[in-house]
């Protein structure tokens, strides 16, 4: 692997304002293939805004985005999907009142004939992914409603979905905030496995220990600006903490 590979995704001079409130000011951000980047900063630093811009939920006021060095526009979820970006939100982006299968294929249903759902094929794929990709226990049917799953099981479903749809890059917005200690461990392990499969990830969290354990590099935001970018070798949890607190 060459160290100077073109970034998988690069954001240059991104600004975003809501009315006269500036959430992001001239922010630069990049992520390379096979890299896990921790996006750190205190509340209101602009982390979520940056993730929303990458996932297509928000559109920047100004700035440029490049995918593999080529200019790209992300105006909607569909656009980011096309670029291989998948977001896993705090609430894991699943609809509680719908079944696992219907969530797994939400918006990307397999159909046959005149637009009818291919239930059999989708059920088989879901079960295969859950048993073999995320190796999740306790789910024996694709018809189980997501609201009956634990937080960790929900994340696992979301991750299995990302893996199945050949995601190049995962955006994880506070994925551990609703998880038990054991489930968090499992999620971090999944991140490691995904990285081994060549998937990059942006990991937003308040928990610096989780970040330090799973990220290769840390980008720290403060009041809408990117203030530091440090690799894991260059820093410690304590130093990261000091940077966030003092800015």
């Amino acid at each position, binding site marked *: 692997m060459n160290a100077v590979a073109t970034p998988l995704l690069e954001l240059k001079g991104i600004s975003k304002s809501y009315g006269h409130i500036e959430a992001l000011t001239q922010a630069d951000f990049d992520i390379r293939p096979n890299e896990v980047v921790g996006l750190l900063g205190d509340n209101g630093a602009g982390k979520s805004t940056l993730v929303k811009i990458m*996932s297509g*939920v928000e559109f920047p006021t100004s700035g440029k985005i490049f995918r593999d060095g080529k200019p790209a526009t992300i105006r*909607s*979820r*569909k656009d980011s*999907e096309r670029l291989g970006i998948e*977001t896993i*939100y705090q*609430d894991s*982006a*699943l*609809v*509680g*009142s*719908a079944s696992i299968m*219907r*969530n797994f*294929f*939400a*918006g*990307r*249903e397999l*159909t046959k004939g005149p*637009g*009818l*759902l291919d*239930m059999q094929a989708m059920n088989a794929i879901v*079960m295969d992914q859950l*048993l073999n990709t995320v190796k999740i226990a306790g789910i*024996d*049917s694709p*018809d189980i*409603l997501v*609201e*009956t799953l634990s937080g960790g099981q929900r994340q696992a479903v979301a991750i299995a979905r990302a893996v199945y749809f050949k995601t190049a890059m995962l955006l994880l917005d506070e994925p551990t905030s609703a998880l038990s200690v054991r489930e968090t461990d499992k999620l971090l392990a999944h991140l490691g496995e995904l990285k081994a499969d060549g998937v990059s990830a942006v990991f937003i969290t308040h928990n610096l220990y989780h970040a330090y354990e799973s990220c290769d590099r840390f980008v720290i935001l403060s009041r809408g600006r990117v203030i530091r970018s440090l690799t894991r070798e260059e820093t410690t949890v304590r130093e990261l903490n000091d940077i966030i607190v003092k800015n």
Partner: protein
Amino acid sequence: MTKTASDLSGLALQPRSRRWRDLLREPVASICMLFIVFQLVCIVGALLFPEAFRYLSPQNVSLLQRAIPVIGVVALGVGLLMITGEYDLSVGSVYTLAGYSMAMLYTAGVSPVVALVLTLLIGIVIGIVNGIITVKTGIPSFIATMGSMLLVRGLVRWLSEMGSVSFRPGEAFASLFTGSVFGVEAAFIWFIVLALAAAVFLHRSKIGNHMYLVGGNERTARAVGIATDRVKIVAFALSGMAAAIAGVLSITRVGTATPAQGLGMELRAIAVCVIGGLFLSGGRGTVLGIVVGACILYMVEDVLLLLRAPGFYLDVFVGAILVIAVIANTALARRSAK
């Protein structure tokens, strides 16, 4: 590897018992059981006292078959919309307007089939307008459709002042909606056909899946790339169309349009859906539930009439069933969420 093997055998063994348990947890299962028990009691009662309780008399059976489809078809549209998390209060007015539209177009010399197509289009357009107003302005559909309910009702009043209108099409067209096949009324057959179409659409089509997801959690649905606004507008359009179909079914049978016909129908349709296990919050429910809900609502009224209960009992019973159904469904949903 042994673990995988045991996992797989567990997987093969579990579904059957699990499926039954899950099925019984579905709100629609309890309402179906209630329906079957109720039906059995009525049939036994009618067999024991054929003179006092004429439930199985040909007149009553045929009456039920003609009465259920009208509210049933309206409820199919309202229910579909309710699953996407919205309401349509304008269905009663659209239903009445559809009767006027059929009668007036026919009187003006338009062929019944063309009148039918135009009438359904009117329903669809009103639905689309309801949808666009709700989605684009972000106001609750309850208010948006209350506005169109009053507006369309005013239009119907105005039309009604131009004289009474009747609709007496030729034998061929009339028998399409009022005939019967082996004792089954045409209207009831239409209801079943439309219900099956709605079931395939909701449970097995891509856009049907999107309706459940939008109703379940609109923000998430949008985040996974579903065009939530378009899905909702389609649902509003179908609700308007269903109300218009019900209006056509009714005018073909009754023959004369009167302005008071659809009064209160919007709330009865919502009641049918709620009895059938749909949630006011959206995202849940089945077409089977709507069909059974419509049957139960009419059976209760019918039985009370056969027993010569005073009129006010009808409302009391329907109200009681409505509240009991919601309590039962909510409890079931809460239990299965644990």
